[in-house]
C-alpha cells in the first residue's frame, strides 16, 4: 500500500475506530504523513466526545410507549396482511424474462424475411434493450433511494433514440394487423409483472403509480423491439396504430397495478 493510492486518505477514516485492515494499519505505522492525517481525524473524533446528550425524560418515554400501545388493531392486521417484500431478485428475474419473452415472439412468429437489410431495426433492438434496463434501474432507484432523476433521464433519452431508429427503418411489405399489438402486449407482460413485484410496494399511491408507469413504459420496449423484428410492415400508420400504443398501454397498466399494490400495504417510512 502506498500514499499514491487515490482513495488512501478516505480509507484513513477507518482508523479512527477499530474497523481498519491490518494492511492499512501497517502503512500508517510507517508513514509519517498518514500518521499525521489520522491524528487530525482522531482530534475531531475525540472532540465529538464532549457532545453528550441528556436522555429523554421519563414522561417522554412513557408517552411514546403509551402511543405504541394505543396503536389500533387494524394497523396490526394490515401489517400481517402485508405481502412478502420483494427486491432485486425479482428485478433480475424481470431482466431475464424480457429477452426470453422477446425471443419467444420471434421463435413462435418468425423474423421478417428482410431483417438483414433492416439496419435501423437491428440498431434499434439493442438500444431499446438498454433503454428497458435503464428504465428498470430508474424505477429501482426511485424505489430504494433518492436521486432517480439521472436514471430516469438516461432511460428517456435512450428510449427516444431507440424508438427513432425503429421508426426510421426502411420501408418493406405492407400488411397491417392488430396482432402486432397483441404480440407486443404478450412480450411486455411477463417482465412488467415481475418488475412490478420488485418495485411496487411503496408509500403513497401517487408515487407508486408514477413508478409503475415508468416500469410499464420500460418493459413495453422489449415487446416493441421484438415485434418490430417480426413485423414485415414499415408503414408509419401501421407502426403508430399497432406498435406504438404498447408504450402508453403498458405505462397505464403499470401505474394502475402499482397503485393497487401500494394501497394494500401499511406505511413503511424506512423504505423510499
Amino acid at each position: 500500500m502506498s500514499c499514491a493510492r487515490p482513495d488512501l486518505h478516505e480509507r484513513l477514516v477507518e482508523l479512527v475506530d477499530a474497523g481498519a485492515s491490518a494492511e492499512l494499519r501497517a502503512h500508517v505505522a510507517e508513514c509519517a504523513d498518514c500518521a499525521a492525517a489520522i491524528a487530525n481525524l482522531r482530534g475531531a473524533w475525540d472532540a465529538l466526545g464532549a457532545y453528550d446528550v441528556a436522555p429523554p425524560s421519563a414522561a417522554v418515554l412513557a408517552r411514546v410507549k403509551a402511543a405504541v400501545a394505543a396503536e389500533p388493531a387494524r394497523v396490526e392486521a394490515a401489517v400481517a396482511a402485508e405481502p412478502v417484500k420483494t427486491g432485486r431478485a425479482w428485478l433480475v428475474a424481470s431482466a431475464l424474462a424480457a429477452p426470453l419473452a422477446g425471443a419467444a415472439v420471434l421463435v413462435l412468429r418468425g423474423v421478417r424475411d428482410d431483417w438483414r437489410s433492416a439496419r435501423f431495426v437491428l440498431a434499434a433492438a439493442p438500444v431499446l434493450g438498454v433503454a428497458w434496463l435503464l428504465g428498470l434501474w430508474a424505477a429501482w432507484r426511485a424505489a430504494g433511494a433518492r436521486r432517480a432523476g439521472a436514471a430516469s433521464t438516461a432511460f428517456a433519452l435512450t428510449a427516444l433514440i431507440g424508438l427513432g431508429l425503429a421508426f426510421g427503418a426502411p420501408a418493406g411489405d405492407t400488411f397491417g394487423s392488430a396482432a402486432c399489438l397483441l404480440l407486443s402486449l404478450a412480450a411486455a407482460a411477463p417482465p412488467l409483472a415481475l418488475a412490478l413485484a420488485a418495485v411496487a410496494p411503496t408509500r403513497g399511491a401517487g408515487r407508486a403509480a408514477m413508478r409503475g408507469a415508468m416500469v410499464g413504459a420500460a418493459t413495453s420496449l422489449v415487446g416493441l423491439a421484438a415485434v418490430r423484428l417480426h413485423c414485415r410492415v414499415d408503414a408509419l400508420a401501421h407502426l403508430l396504430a399497432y406498435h406504438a400504443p404498447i408504450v402508453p398501454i403498458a405505462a397505464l397498466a403499470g401505474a394502475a397495478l402499482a397503485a393497487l399494490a401500494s394501497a394494500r400495504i401499511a406505511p413503511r417510512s424506512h423504505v423510499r
Partner: protein
Amino acid sequence: MDQETDEVLMRRYCAGDERAFEALFARHAGRVHAFLVRHVRDRALADDLLQSAWLHVHRARGTFRDGERFTAWLYTIANNLRRDEGRRRARDQAALSRDGKLPEPSAAASAAAGGIGGGGGGGAAGAAGGGGSGAAGGGELAERVAAALEALPEQYREVIVLHRWHDLGFAEIARMLGTTEGAVKLRAHRGYLALREALGKEAP
C-alpha cells in the same frame, strides 16, 4: 432477556411478545433520541420524532427480515423521519418567504410548543434541555461541537453521527443511505476534517 440480541428480541416482538418490545425500547430509545437531538438540536422536536420512530417500528415490524441488523433498521427509520421533517420545515419556510404569512403550525411544532403529543412531555423535555443543542454537559466546548456539527452539510453530518455515536460500520451506513461504502467513507473523512477545522485548537 438482557442477554438476548436485538434481532432475537425483534423476532419475539414480531411474534407478539410485548416484553421483547419493552427490552428493545429500554435499550435503544435513549440512543435514538440522542441521534435525533444531534440532528435537529431541538429536544422537543426530537421527542416527537422519537414517538414517530417507535410507532413506525411497531407498524412496520412485519417487514423486519432475518439477517437484518436491528439497529441499522431502526436508525434508517429515525433518519428518514428527521429528513422528512427537515424537508417539511423547509417547505414551510419557503411558503413563508413567498407570501409573507406565517405557515400553519405543524404537529411537531405544536408539540414543541408544549401542545399536542400527549401529556406535554415534549415541552417538559425541551425545557429541561434548554432548547439549544441539547447537550447534557461539557459547557462551552459541547456547545461549540454541537454548533460545528450543525454547520456541516447534512450528508456529512448524518454519516458522522451514525459512525461516531451509534456503532454502525461504513458498510451498514452505506446500505442505510442507499449509497456506496466508498462514498460514505469520503463523506466521513471530509466531515471529520471540516469539524477539526471548525473546532481549531480546542479539539484535542
